[in-house]
C-alpha cells in the first residue's frame, strides 16, 4: 500500500497545472465560457500535445497507456482552475466507452483522433425520461437495408453541439430491447443539435435524431449497459477528482478571504465561528480526497470499480455541497457575484454532482447491498 505520488506523477501534475494555470489565470475563464463552444480550442490542442487526451488508452491505439492515477491528476488540475475543457466527458466517459467497445478500425479513427485532439466525441445518452440510467429509453435503432437509423431525442448532451462525433445509445427492439451504441457523424442527415450554455459555463445540447444514419459501435448486437456502467463508473471517479480540485481552490480562496477581509475593525479570521467552519470544510475535503484517491487505485487494481465509484461519488457529493455552500456563505455578498470566482466553483460542483448520479442516488445503491458484507476492507476483496 502506498498513497504517495511518484516523481513522474508529480511532474505530470506540474505540467498540467502550468498549462491550465496560464490558460485560466485571472479573468480569462469568464471570456472563454462566454463564447461557444464554451472552452478554449487552443487549450484543448495543448492538452493533446501534452498527450493528456490519450492518457488512459493503449499506446498502440495512439494513447499513452497511463493509469487511473494519472487521469485523476489531470482531472484534479482541471477542477482546480475550473478549466471548461470537457476532459472527463470526452476522454474518460466517451473515449473510455469507445475504447472498451469499438472495433479496432473504429478505434484507429476515433481513439486516435481524440488523442491527437482532432476529434472531440460526446456521449449522447441521457433522455428527459431517464434518470442516471445505464439504458436508453426513448431513442430507437432500426436497421433498414443494411443501414442503421436512429430516431428520438437525447437531452441534455454535454458538449453535444460542438462534438465532431456522437456516441449514441439506443434501444434495439430486434435485439430484445437491448441498449446498443452507435456512432453518429456531425454531418449526418436528420441530425439536429441545439446547443446552450449551462449554469456552470459549460455547454450542453438537445440532440434530435430523425431516422439519422448511424454505425454500430463495436461488433455484435450485445446489450452494452455493462460497458456503459463501467465507463460511467470511471467517469464518476474522474469527476470526484475534478471536484476535489475545485473544492481545494474554493477552500483556499475562502481562507485567503478570511485572512484579509476586515469587518468591525479586524480581519475575519478573528471570528472563531468562521474559522471553525473553515476547519470543518477542510475535514470534508480531506475525507473526500482519500475516497477519490482510493477509488482510482481500485480501478487500477482491477477491483469492483462500480462500487468504489459509488463510494467516491457519495463522499464527494456531500463534501461538494458542504464546501460549495459554506465557501459562499463565508464570503458574504461577494460570493454570489459572477465577478468573483468562488461562486463559479459552487456552480461547477453542483453541475458535477448531478451529471452522473448525485450522492443520494449513490447511497441508494450502496444501501441495497449494505447487508452483503460484515465490514468494508478497503485493501481487500472486492476492491483489490
Amino acid at each position, binding site marked *: 500500500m502506498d498513497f504517495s505520488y511518484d516523481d513522474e506523477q508529480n511532474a505530470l501534475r506540474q505540467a498540467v497545472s502550468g498549462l491550465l494555470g496560464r490558460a485560466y489565470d485571472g479573468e480569462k475563464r469568464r471570456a472563454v465560457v462566454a463564447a461557444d463552444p464554451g472552452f478554449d480550442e487552443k487549450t484543448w490542442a495543448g492538452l493533446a500535445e501534452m498527450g493528456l487526451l490519450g492518457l488512459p488508452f493503449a499506446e498502440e491505439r495512439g494513447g499513452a497507456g497511463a493509469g487511473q492515477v494519472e487521469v485523476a491528476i489531470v482531472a484534479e488540475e482541471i477542477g482546480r482552475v475550473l478549466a471548461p475543457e470537457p476532459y472527463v466527458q470526452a476522454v474518460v466517459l466517451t473515449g473510455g466507452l469507445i475504447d472498451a467497445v469499438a472495433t479496432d478500425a473504429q478505434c484507429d479513427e476515433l481513439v486516435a483522433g481524440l488523442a491527437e485532439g482532432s476529434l472531440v466525441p460526446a456521449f449522447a445518452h*441521457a433522455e428527459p425520461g431517464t434518470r442516471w440510467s445505464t439504458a436508453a429509453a426513448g431513442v430507437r435503432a432500426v436497421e433498414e437495408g443494411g443501414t442503421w437509423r436512429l430516431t428520438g431525442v437525447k437531452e*441534455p448532451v454535454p458538449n453535444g453541439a460542438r462534438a465532431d462525433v456522437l456516441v449514441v445509445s439506443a434501444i434495439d427492439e430486434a435485439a430484445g430491447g437491448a441498449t446498443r451504441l452507435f456512432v453518429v457523424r456531425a454531418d449526418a442527415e436528420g441530425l439536429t443539435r*441545439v446547443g446552450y450554455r449551462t449554469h456552470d459555463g459549460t455547454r450542453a445540447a438537445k440532440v434530435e435524431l430523425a431516422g439519422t444514419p448511424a454505425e454500430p459501435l463495436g461488433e455484435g448486437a450485445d446489450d452494452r449497459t455493462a460497458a456503459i456502467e463501467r465507463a460511467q463508473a470511471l467517469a464518476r471517479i474522474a469527476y470526484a477528482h475534478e471536484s476535489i480540485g475545485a473544492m481545494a481552490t474554493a477552500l483556499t480562496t475562502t481562507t485567503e478571504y478570511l485572512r484579509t477581509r476586515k469587518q468591525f475593525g479586524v480581519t475575519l479570521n478573528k471570528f472563531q465561528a468562521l474559522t471553525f467552519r473553515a476547519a470543518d470544510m477542510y475535514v470534508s475535503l480531506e475525507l473526500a480526497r482519500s475516497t477519490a484517491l482510493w477509488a482510482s487505485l481500485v480501478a487500477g487494481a482491477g477491483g469492483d470499480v462500480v462500487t468504489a465509484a459509488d463510494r467516491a461519488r457519495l463522499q464527494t457529493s456531500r463534501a461538494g455541497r458542504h464546501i460549495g455552500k459554506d465557501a459562499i456563505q463565508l464570503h458574504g455578498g461577494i460570493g454570489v457575484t459572477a465577478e468573483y470566482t468562488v461562486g463559479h466553483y459552487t456552480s461547477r460542483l453542483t453541475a458535477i454532482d448531478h451529471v452522473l448520479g448525485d450522492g443520494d442516488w449513490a447511497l441508494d445503491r450502496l444501501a441495497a447491498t449494505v447487508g452483503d458484507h460484515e465490514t468494508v476492507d478497503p485493501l481487500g476483496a472486492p476492491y483489490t
Partner: protein
Amino acid sequence: MRLQLSPEDEAFRQEMRTFFTTKVPQATRDAVAARRDVGREQYVETQRILNAAGLAVPHWPVEWGGRDWTPLQRHIWREEMQLACVPEPLAFNTSMIGPVIAAFGDDAQKQRFLPATANLDIWWCQGFSEPDAGSDLASLRTTAVREGDEYVVNGQKTWTTLGQYADWIFCLVRTDPTAEKKQRGISMLVFPMDTPGVTLRPIELIDGGFEVNEVFFEDVRVPAEYLIGEENRGWDYAKFLLGNERAGIARVGATKRLLADAKQLATEVRADGRPLSEDPRMAARIAELENELLALELTALRVVAHSTDGKPHPASSVLKLRGSELQQAATELIVDIAGPLSLASFAGEDSQVPEWARAATPEYLNYRKVTIYGGSNEVQRTIIAGTILGL
C-alpha cells in the same frame, strides 16, 4: 389559548385569498409560480392594484394609507399574498423608506413622497452597504458635505437591489467625519437616480441574472430639503428601518409554494420505473422539510401574537435564520428532483427539459443570497446569543 382563527380573522383570510387570486393578473401570478423574473411593469401594475384596494401599505399610519390591522391580520395578508404568488409590494418603498419618512420626515416630505411611494409612482432603491462595510454598516465612507443649501455627495454604494429600475435612492452618508462614535456622524439623504454624478453599474450574479448594482456618486449635489429627519441621526433611522416589519422575513408562504411544487414535480419525475415521490427517502426528505416549515410558521404566529407593542420580537432572528435556511433547502430539493435534467439550465423554449428543471439550479444558486442579506445568519446568531441568551 385557542387554535382557530376568530370568525373575523377567518373572514379576513377569505377576503384576502379571494382578492389576491381574482384581482391580480393571472399572467403575473403564473410568472411568480414558475419562478420566472417579474419585470418592472408587473411589479408596478400589481402594487397599484393593491394600493387602490388599500392593500399595499397596511402597516403605515392610517392617514397615509395604513389600516390599523392587528399583527395577525398583517401576517395573514402577507402569507396569503405569497401563497397566491402575488409579487409583494416593493419592500424598499413600503417597509423601508416609507415608514421612515412617515415617522421622521417633515410635512413637505410626507406630502411629496408617501402617496407616490405607496403607489410605486416612485421606485426606491437602497444605498446602505459599501464595498468595505458589509455587515459592519457603521464603517461606511460615502461623504456628504454641506455647501449652502446643498449636500455634495461622494462615494460608492453596493448591493443596491433593483437599482436599475429605481427612480430615487435613500442613502446613508457620513456628514460628520469627526464624530467620536462612527455611528454618530451618519445622515440619511434621498435623491433622484438621474441626478448628475450618479452612475450605476449592474453586478452579474452567479445565476447569470442582474438584480444588484454598484452605485457611484461623484460630486452629486443634493438639495438640503432631501435630508430626512435631523443631520447626524441617520443611524437611528437606519436601525428603525431595519428592525421594521420583521414579520414577513420568515417567508413561510413562499416556501410553502416551493414545497408544494416540489411534491407535485416529484410525482412527475420517474426513477427506476416509479414516481420519485414514492421513493421512501425522497418522501421522508419532503415530509421533514414540511414539518420544519410548519414549526417555523407556528413560531411566526407566536411572534406575531406577542408583537403588539410594535417592537420586533427578539425571536424575529429565529424567523430570519430558519426561514432563509428552509428557502435554501427547498430550492436544493427541487434541483435534486430535477436530477440530470438540471444540467439543461439555459436551454431554450424548444428544449424537451421542462422549464422548472431548467430554472432549478440558477434559482438554487441565486438563493445562496438569502442567508447573507437582510442581516446575515451570522449576525442573527450574534443577536440571539447576545440579546436573548445574554452571552
